[in-house]
């Protein structure tokens, strides 16, 4: 079996069992080299100078835009807007599209599975416009009943926002079907791809979404570069989110003519090195291939899930089936607070996340206050899973709750 850790300098240097990949992934050497290469060979302010370096920097940046376009199946490169991250992408939609298209009496429908970044911008829109915020709720295993979703959408619904893969449950949601329901009622569909893009091939045209957001850093790319996809005809009509340099055609004392998309939405000096790094990350991911990524993640997280079920006192949240987890296993241990669990795992060199995972409404809906999340990537091995399992199987005992027995 190929050792993908060899591609990741941090994983080779650091013995930590890193299974907090849903928070941020590690970056392969190819991405680090690409970022470095940009600064060493092509650095200049893109889109500004006429001299060769600036032209090269601009080319690098625009090539990355086309790479993202192909990666998510967008129709035009102008539909790809670079942002800092998913959070900024969703805020852009909310402030620009949301505030100009939602009014009092309208409804915005979001799923209860949203990350806070996919919820708070819509709370803002509803607060400022007087629209009503409504929720698509999942069943106790995290699944969705599409009949219930359909019943929530009506002609007052202006925006439907849902995450494609939940950062807590790892489950994939039927975005295409939800988008169809939204469109039937004249609403636009916003999908959060922060957790889907690292695990499954995405095609925004096939999904039929109007907006789609994701972050480079969860896709093995640099921090500080994110993407917003938007349909051309919508982006063209939307007002800018931020204003300033690089997003204008011309400026007079008290007015300005904005640039065409995508530049209209990319005010100020852009993160060209980040975009170049994201391009390299996309290349890397394509090189490994989603079939292989899925196979490896399924194998290791499936093994971990099976073994976890044999340990007394562990409760797994979400589906019983490993293939519905996309490498994300969220759980609790009876009597032990999640922060104490992750502290014990940390003392054994295992890095996981504890807390509310920026999804407090979902945890509350499922009846939890805090949980622990282990999230596996394709580079994690069965040995990683074993170290994690060995550690969690001793947690109750080490917290003074008597010896843990196998069921």
């Amino acid at each position, binding site marked *: 079996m190929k050792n993908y850790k060899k591609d990741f300098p941090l994983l080779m240097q650091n013995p930590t069992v890193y299974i907090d990949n849903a928070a941020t992934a590690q970056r392969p050497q190819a991405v680090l080299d690409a970022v470095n290469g940009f600064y060493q060979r092509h650095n200049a302010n893109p889109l500004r100078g006429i001299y060769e370096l600036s032209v090269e920097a601009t080319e690098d940046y625009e090539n990355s835009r086309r790479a993202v376009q192909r990666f998510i199946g967008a129709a035009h490169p102008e539909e790809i807007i670079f942002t800092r991250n998913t959070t900024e992408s969703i805020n852009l939609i909310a402030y620009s599209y949301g505030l100009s298209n939602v009014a009092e009496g309208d409804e915005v429908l979001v799923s209860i599975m949203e990350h806070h970044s996919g919820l708070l911008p819509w709370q803002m829109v509803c607060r400022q416009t007087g629209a009503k915020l409504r929720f698509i709720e999942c069943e106790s295993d995290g699944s969705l009943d599409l009949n219930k979703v359909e019943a929530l959408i009506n002609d007052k619904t202006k925006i439907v926002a849902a995450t494609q893969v939940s950062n807590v449950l790892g489950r994939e949601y039927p975005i295409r079907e939800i988008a169809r329901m939204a469109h039937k009622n004249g609403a636009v569909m916003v999908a959060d791809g922060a957790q889907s893009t690292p695990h499954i091939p995405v095609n925004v045209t096939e999904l039929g979404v109007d907006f789609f957001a994701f972050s480079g850093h969860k896709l093995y790319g640099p921090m500080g570069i994110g993407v917003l996809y938007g349909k051309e005809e919508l982006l063209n009509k939307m007002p800018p989110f931020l204003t300033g340099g690089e997003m204008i055609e011309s400026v007079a004392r008290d007015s300005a003519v904005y640039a065409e998309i995508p530049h209209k939405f990319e005010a100020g000096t852009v993160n060209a090195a980040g975009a170049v790094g994201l391009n390299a990350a996309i290349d890397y991911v394509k090189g490994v291939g989603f079939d292989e990524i899925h196979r490896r993640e399924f194998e290791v997280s499936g093994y971990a899930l099976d073994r976890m079920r044999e340990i007394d006192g562990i409760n797994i949240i979400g589906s019983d089936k490993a293939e519905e987890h996309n490498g994300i296993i969220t759980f609790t241990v009876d*009597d*032990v*607070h*999640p*922060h*104490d669990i992750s*502290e*014990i795992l940390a*003392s*054994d060199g295992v890095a996981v996340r504890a*807390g*509310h995972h920026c999804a407090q409404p979902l945890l509350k809906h499922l009846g939890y*206050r*805090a949980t622990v999340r282990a999230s596996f990537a394709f580079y994690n091995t069965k040995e990683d899973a074993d170290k994690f399992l*060995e*550690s969690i199987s*001793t947690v109750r005992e*080490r*917290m*003074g*709750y008597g010896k843990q027995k196998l069921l």
Partner: protein
Amino acid sequence: MENRSFYNEILTEHNIHPDFKHDIPDADIVLDGVNPSCGDEIQLKLKIDGDIITDGAFVGDGCAISQASTDIMLGMIIGRKKEEAVKMGNTFMRMIRGEASEEEIESLEEASALRDISHMPARVKCAMLGWRTLSEALKNES
């Protein structure tokens, strides 16, 4: 597996079998303490007679560190003068910041079981929750 984590028996005992986790219906001071980022929360209840803390208890929910630390604290401060309790709290905070002398740490009796928190920045708030709430409660009172 060898227990490399810092959850020693003193902590796990106070967490599982706390001595002071109960209600005091006629408490003179009741104050909530929360760590919003981790969700630890306690409600500290004190009975005061003049200068003396005559009784104390807490209810709440949170990680073992926050709960055990609060329980240990109550065992140390009940029966003491308010100003002594505040002084202990200051010494505890110095220990957690890694600034206390061996002598000072010894003076903290059971609370010295938490000394290694000084190497765990993410958990400092948990260990401090009880003491922070106590110092606010006594400050408000005076």
